[in-house]
């Protein structure tokens, strides 16, 4: 067949961003992100900076499912919260350095994610959200009842921050931030690695067209379980850092309101990886400001802002900014044809 006979001939070539330039943009963004993570405790109160970092990773873990696989989990508190407790329990009873305790919490979150994922990925859409919520509520119930282990409504108090006897890290929130943010960055890097792997490609295919993915021989349910467990691990890592940072784990971490933090990546823009951190920074900073001025109706303010952003920017803050910037760049340099 000749080239002319190809249907391709009808294709109108519109501007594309040249791959080389796109990867430059990626590196610049990465540098900005790293600088922001390092500079953060100089500009905001260090424990708040730690909260931003932890919620940023939680938001990334949600986006891994929502933005890249098309699964809305409404039970991610189960992984954030159970890791917060298990991390705390290990730190209290075993007395290992806190990164080891967090690793334990993370592994526990992944372990419970296996059966939960297995039982919920058969459902899609709102049913998937409901099943994950139901499991999260079950775990909340168990933590509430098992008073001797979890402290029930009092939460788990006095979680130590042991770190190889380095006193600044163990007592000063500023130094602790730098010790712990490394774990968060490691988690963010893992998410990036997963999304830009052959596995990540399959995830996008599943999100776009699960039936076609199956016709190509991909076991869609299995892939969903694996990404669910990986996502739970990242949420667990974030929850573990949070509980060490605060020195206690409360039932709040397991409550459905924590699962409700799925709005963080939606605010920032799903399927963008940067959207989660942007949304997390916005919400944590806002809540902190409102709390310091003694404002009661925090929920009303953040809720309203959420609605406005979702209505105004359908792709979220980051997603919209990226689209606009890309549009400007494309207008200036048209990509050369190859």
């Amino acid at each position, binding site marked *: *067949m000749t*080239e002319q*006979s*190809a*249907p*391709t001939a*009808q*294709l109108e*070539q*519109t501007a*594309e961003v040249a*791959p080389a330039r796109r990867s430059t943009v990626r590196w610049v963004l990465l540098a900005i992100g790293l600088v922001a993570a390092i500079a953060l405790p100089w500009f905001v109160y260090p424990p708040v900076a730690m909260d931003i970092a932890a919620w940023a990773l939680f938001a990334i873990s949600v986006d891994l499912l929502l933005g890249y696989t098309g699964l809305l989990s409404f039970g991610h508190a189960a992984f954030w919260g159970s890791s917060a407790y298990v991390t705390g329990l290990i730190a209290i009873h075993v007395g290992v350095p806190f990164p080891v305790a967090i690793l334990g919490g993370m592994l526990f979150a992944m372990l419970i994610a296996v059966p939960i994922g297995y039982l919920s990925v058969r459902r899609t859409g709102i049913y998937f959200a409901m099943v994950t919520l139901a499991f999260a509520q079950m775990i909340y119930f168990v933590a509430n009842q098992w008073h001797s282990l979890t402290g029930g409504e009092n939460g788990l108090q006095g979680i130590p921050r042991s770190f190889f006897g380095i006193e600044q890290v163990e007592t000063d929130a500023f130094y602790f931030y730098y010790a712990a943010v490394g774990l968060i960055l490691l988690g963010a890097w893992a998410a990036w*690695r*997963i999304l*830009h*792997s*052959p*596995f*990540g*490609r*399959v995830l*996008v*295919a599943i*999100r*776009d*067209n699960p*039936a*076609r*993915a*199956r*016709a*190509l*021989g*991909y*076991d*869609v349910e299995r*892939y969903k379980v*694996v990404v669910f467990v*990986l996502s739970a691990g990242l949420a667990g890592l974030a929850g573990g850092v949070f509980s060490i940072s605060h020195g206690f784990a409360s039932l709040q971490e397991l409550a459905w309101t924590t699962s409700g933090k799925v709005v963080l990546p939606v605010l920032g823009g799903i399927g963008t990886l940067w959207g989660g951190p942007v949304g997390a920074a916005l919400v944590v900073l806002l809540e902190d400001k409102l709390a310091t001025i003694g404002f009661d109706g925090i929920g009303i303010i953040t809720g309203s802002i959420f609605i406005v952003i979702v209505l105004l920017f359908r792709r979220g803050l980051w997603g919209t900014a990226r689209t606009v910037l890309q549009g400007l760049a494309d207008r200036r340099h048209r990509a050369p044809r190859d």
Partner: protein
Amino acid sequence: MAPARTEREVLLATRGLTKEFRGFQAVRGVDLDIERGTVQALVGPNGAGKTTLFNLLTGFLTPTSGTITLEGRDITGQQPEQIAHLGVARSFQITSLFDQLTALEHLELALASPTGLGRRFWQSERRLATFHGRADELLDQVGMAHPAHRPAGQFAYGQKRALELALALALDPKLLLLDEPTAGMGLEDVDRTIELVRRIATGRTVVLVDHNMHVVGSLADRVTVLQQGEILAEGTYDEVRTNPDVVTAYLGQPHA
């Protein structure tokens, strides 16, 4: 006993294959034998059950009763991904692609499928570049020699159909099921697609659904006519065309 039969090998067979949707039988007691190396056309009016039959053969639907065997092995009730791994690939009547992926990315996925590379979440997606060469060949084969680095969601219709074919081919299937590959095409594109399918079909087994009798006449070794879920007639194109039942039921109208 007859020596001529030894070279006729049945690749896929169905017996009493039936699919019921809430009391309505879309496919009823279908006995089909697909011989290796042949092109078999499946024709019949809209709603005859052709797509449903494809969905049964590829595991997207579970039969209400009846069996499906591939190379003598019972595959009834297997999942679509398992059947794909056994060497049955299909194209979809309604174009079914991954909107966010480019043509090359589609083919890399299809080619990587049997290797298990897709499970590796710890490696760079650059690993998929091993399939570039083969992907280019396939694109060339279906006439997409210069694919755009654009997501398939933005492709022109003809391109989508071509990629649909390339995807099914990428699995190097024993049995290729094509559901209306010329649907919605102009005359020129139809002729091009006939040529393409002819080339693809050499050395392969193909089951083809098409409404266009010109397509069926030029490609099919055998034709099965389906009506209201049942096999109405079977034979060569000329046998079927002159079959009185078929003439009254379906081919009555003149065609190009």
